[in-house]
C-alpha cells in the first residue's frame, strides 16, 4: 500500500492501548503504516491476556483476505485468536505485510504456561464494534475494535 507519511510523533509510532467497553475490551494499535498498526494491536491483544513476557520461541504463519482494510483488521485479529486457541500458545512478536486485500503475517510465541502467564482472559473473537482503521490527522495509522473476551 502506497504511503506518503510525514514523520509521526515518535511516542505514538508503534504504540497501543486498551480502551473500555461495557463487558469486553477495546484494542487500538498505531503505526506508520496499516501493517504496523495491525502488529501493535495484536500486541495489545496479548497484553489483554497476560502481563508476563511472551518468549518468541516458535513462529506461525497466517494469511487472510477481506474486501477492505477494516474487515481485514478483524480477520487478522481473528487469525491470531484462532492460532492462540488451537495451538494453546501466546504470541509476543508480530510481522504483518499487506498487499491490497491480502495480509500475510508471522507470529512468534510460546505455549501457554498457566503459572507464569496467569492468563486473565481468553479472547473469543474480534468484533465490528468500534471498528476503525484510519490515517489520523498527524499521519499515523490507527487500527481499533472491541474484542469479545
Amino acid at each position, binding site marked *: 500500500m502506497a504511503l506518503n507519511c510525514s514523520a509521526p510523533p515518535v511516542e505514538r509510532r508503534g504504540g497501543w492501548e*486498551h*480502551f*473500555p*467497553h*461495557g*463487558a*469486553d*475490551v*477495546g484494542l487500538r494499535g498505531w503505526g506508520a503504516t496499516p501493517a504496523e498498526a495491525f502488529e501493535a494491536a495484536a500486541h495489545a491483544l496479548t497484553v489483554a*491476556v497476560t*502481563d508476563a513476557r511472551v518468549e518468541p520461541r516458535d513462529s506461525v504463519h497466517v494469511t487472510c483476505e*477481506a474486501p477492505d482494510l477494516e*474487515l481485514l483488521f*478483524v*480477520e487478522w485479529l*481473528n487469525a491470531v485468536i*484462532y492460532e*492462540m*486457541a*488451537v495451538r*494453546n500458545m501466546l504470541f509476543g512478536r508480530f510481522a504483518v505485510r499487506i498487499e491490497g486485500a491480502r495480509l500475510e503475517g508471522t507470529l512468534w510465541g510460546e505455549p*501457554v*504456561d*498457566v*503459572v507464569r*502467564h*496467569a*492468563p*486473565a*482472559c*481468553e479472547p*473469543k*473473537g*474480534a*468484533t*465490528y*464494534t468500534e*471498528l476503525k482503521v484510519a490515517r489520523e490527522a498527524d499521519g499515523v495509522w490507527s487500527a481499533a475494535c*472491541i474484542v*469479545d*473476551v
Partner: protein
Amino acid sequence: MDPGRFTRVDSATWRIETTGSMRVPAIIYADESLIADMDDKVGEQAVNVATLPGIVQASYVMPDAHWGYGFPIGGVAAFDADRGGVVSGGGVGFDISCGVRTMLTGLTASDIVLVQKSLAESLFHQIPAGLGSEGAIALDASEMDAMLAGGAQWAVERGWGAAHDLERIEEAGRMAGARPDFVSDHAKERQRREMGTLGSGNHYLEVQAVAEILDTTVAGVFGLARDDAVVTIHCGSRGLGHQIGTEFLKEMLATAKGAGIALADRELACAPIHSEVGQRYLGAMRAGVNCALANREILGHYARRVFTHFFPNSDLRLLFDVSHNTCKVESHLVDGKRRDLFVHRKGATRAFGPGHESLPAALRSVGQPVLVGGSMGTGSYVLVGEATSEARAFSSACHGAGRAMSRHAALRQWSGRAIVDDLASRGILIRSPSTRGVAEEAPGAYKDVDAVVVAAERAGLARRVARLRPLICIKG
C-alpha cells in the same frame, strides 16, 4: 441513559416510540435507576434492532442490559420467517447457548463449610478453567459430529452425565435441526480438546447456599430449602460457538447487503430466514447449542465426581439448565393469533410460565426455573417464569447482574489479591489461575443483582423464588 428520553409506561416499563426506520417500538423493562446506569449504547442498539426486517411486536431490553454487539446484551427480538424475517448471528451472540445450570446436592451449607477449602482446591484442579487449560476429552471427526448432533444426550450416552438430567435441560438436552456438516473445520478444530472446560471471563462454577426463600410453594417444587447447598455452572459452547459466530458474522454482512437490508450497525449482520445462508446458520448454530448442552452436562459430571469423593452418598440432581444466547423457533400469541417465531435471546433467559407443554411434568404446574447469575461476591437468584412473560417479552427474562463497569475500569479500581482476601474473610473462597482476571470480574463491576430481579418481577417477566450466596467460586 436518561429515562426522561423515553415514554414511561409503568414503574418497570419504558418505551422508545417508533421513529425513522424503526419498524416497531423498543421496550425497556427496568426501573429508573437501572436505566440511568445503562450506557446510551443500550438504547441505540435496541433502536437498531427495531429496524430489522420481519421483527414482531417490539425490540425488548431486559433489566440487566448492557452495551453489546449489534444487539444489546439483554436483548430479545422475534422474527416471522414468512414476513421477511431475519436470523442474526449478533442476535445470538458469539458464545452460542452460553447458559447456566443449577444442581441440587442434598447437602447443607454447614456440610460444605466443614470441607470448604479442600473442596475448593479439588474443584479447581478437576475442572479445567481458563486459557491454557486442556480438557481430558479429545474428539475425533466422527465423535465431533455425534456430539454436535446429540448434545447432552450424547454426553450421557458416553458416560459423562445422567439420563435423568435430560428432561431438566431445554430441548431435552438435544437441539433438533443441528447440522454438523454446516460447522466449519476451523470451528471443529477449535473445539477438539475443549469439551468439559469452563472457559474464562464471566464463566464460573460455584458452590452456593440458599440464603433466602422468597416463594415457599415454588421453592418446594424446585427442591430448594434455606441453607441447602447447590452447584451452579455458567459456561457455553467454547471455541466452537465463537468460531461459528465469527465466520457467519462475516458471511451475513455480505448476505444482508445482497438482500438489500440496510444495517444500522455491521454487527447486526443477518440473513433472511428463508435464504441459503440463513438456513445454514440455523443448522450450524443449533449444532453450537448442542455443544454447549454437552459441555455443561460434562462439567456437571465432573462436579458430581468431586462431590462423591467428599460426600460418598451425595446425589447431585439437576434443577434446570437454561441457555441465554440462542435463537429458537417458538409458538407465541401475537394479537390473539398463534405464530411460529424465531426468538433471539442475546443475554436473556427463556422464562416459560406455568403450564407450558415443554416443561417436565414435575415443574409444569409452577413454571420454568430462571437461573440468574450474580457476581462472585453478591450471589445469584432462582426465579420462576410468569404467565405474563409471554405477552411482555415472548417469555423472556434477565440472565445475570449485568456489568456496570468495564474490565478496564475494574482493573484500575481493584486488586485481585485484595478481592480474594476480602471474600475469604466473608466465607467465600475464590480459586482462579489469574488474580488479574478476578479483579476484572470484581463484584463492584456488576450491577446490583437484587435491583435487576426486582425489576424483572415488577415487569411480570419472572418471579423471585430463592436467593443464593456463594461459598466457593472457580473462575477461569
